[in-house]
């Protein structure tokens, strides 16, 4: 699905360099450095408060101030407002899910504008998430936690964005639903999506990811291919 892009073969889809971010006076990210390659599932792992959510928000241009470089498909996005970053092809699924209470499930699902061709059709989205079709006319926030998470993921698949930023999609969900989300991520990867996944659940991350970046105090302190990720070292980082 993904076209070859500027920078030639082997170039990363997303390259984050020396990214700093602030909320007001608080300096939260202290020079994040990492890449996401086309077609892979990469994670940001780390304890609560390490700066994982802030990293995704900084990539989307949703923090107060940011410096450094965020190159997507060969183009610099650091000076763009968040609506233009989204239109460049990055889709965001927030930690708090962000389902709109004043919209029905169906309205929530088609809210994000299609920015270019190549995304899933509505029929394909319904095939992946049949529950969303059954509950189409319900108020968005009347769905269960798991269904809301599905909706939050589903609505960004239609847009034609190639890179999905998913912030803790398994947080607070029952094991069977976590497993289901794992299956979905595998299918999205097969479909050609590139995924940057924020997780605290290492077992889940190990089941879907190609590479892990460990985040501590607003920096990437380690980068481990999934094949070499030992549960012991990563759980040490995560403090579990």
């Amino acid at each position, binding site marked *: 699905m993904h076209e070859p892009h500027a920078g030639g073969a082997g170039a990363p889809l997303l390259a984050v360099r020396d990214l700093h971010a602030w909320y007001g006076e608080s300096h939260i990210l202290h020079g994040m450095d990492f890449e996401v390659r086309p077609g892979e599932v990469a994670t940001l792992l780390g304890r609560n408060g390490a700066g994982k959510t802030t990293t995704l928000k900084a990539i989307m241009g*949703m923090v107060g101030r940011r410096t450094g470089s965020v190159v997507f498909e060969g183009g610099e996005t650091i000076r763009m*407002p*968040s609506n*233009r*970053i989204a239109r460049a092809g990055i*889709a965001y699924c927030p930690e708090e899910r962000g389902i*709109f209470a004043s919209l029905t499930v169906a309205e929530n699902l088609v809210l*994000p*504008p299609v920015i270019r061709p190549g995304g899933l059709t509505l029929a394909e989205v319904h095939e992946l998430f049949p529950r969303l079709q059954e509950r189409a006319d319900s108020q968005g926030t009347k769905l269960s936690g798991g269904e809301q998470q599905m909706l939050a993921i589903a609505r960004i698949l239609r*847009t034609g964005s190639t890179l999905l930023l998913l912030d803790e999609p398994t947080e607070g969900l029952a094991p069977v639903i976590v497993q289901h989300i794992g299956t979905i991520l595998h299918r999205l990867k097969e479909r050609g999506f590139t995924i940057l996944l924020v997780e605290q659940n290492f077992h889940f991350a190990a089941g879907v990811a190609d590479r892990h970046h460990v985040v501590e105090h607003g920096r990437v302190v380690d980068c481990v291919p999934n094949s070499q990720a030992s549960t012991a070292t990563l759980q040490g980082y995560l403090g579990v």
Partner: protein
Amino acid sequence: MVTFFGVPIQALMGQLLLGLINGASYAVLSLGLALIFGLLNIINFAHGAQYMMGAFVAWMLLTYAGINYWLALLVAPLVVGLFGVLIERLLLHRLYKLDHLYGLLLTFGLALIMEGLFRQAYGISGQSYDPPQMLQGGVNLGFMFLPLYRGWVVVVALAVCLAVWAGIEKTRLGALLRAATENPALVRAFGVNVPLLITGTYGFGAALAAFAGVLAAPLYSINPLMGSNIIIIVFAVVVIGGMGSILGSVLTGFGLGLVEGLTKVFYPEASSTVIFVIMAIVLLIKPAGLFGRAN
């Protein structure tokens, strides 16, 4: 003579119609206020001045350019709407990062300036504006005489309110607006130009106020203070209906117009205060307003 609780039915119907007409203005004005408050979180104190400008622009179009009522119904809201767009782009826009109080103060100041300018130019004696030929005169309904123009005002105001409500509840643009009212940052991160949506909403709210002003022009004398007279009541309507509730503000607008009319019949002394009494009671019992969601 037919009477109702001792009141001649003619008089009752007449007051109810007056109530409906006032209610129509309340509804259209509070609709715009609610829209603006929902998305911008600003209480638009310039709303009354924008209503007054609508009436004045219609009068100026007729007086200086010979442009008739029907065209003015389109052109005056357009002019005042564009003026609103300018205000949002140049001034309000800079205040969103600060407390909402600053937006309120700014729009209050703008209202005073606009009123002052029109007072300077036209005094406060007021200008008159004739209803269009087609809507002069009236029909006898048997139980009462209905001036055509008044009937038209009620119908067209209802239609506009319904259309705006449908636009917000049933269209994609409306869904974007509702979503941006809840979480503008996220809607923007989906690729929607939310600042443009905000500018458009403020302009549209101002245009709605101007539309109400044009409707009112043939009913009342057009004077620079007409906005501040009505807007105090409209603020009460919005508080009673619930800040930011679209349907609530429309229903409350018409409802309170009727209540005001009935009060004029049965207890005239209270007719100018009844809305504020209701506001106080609603604030005590349901502070979020009759249709508001507490948060």
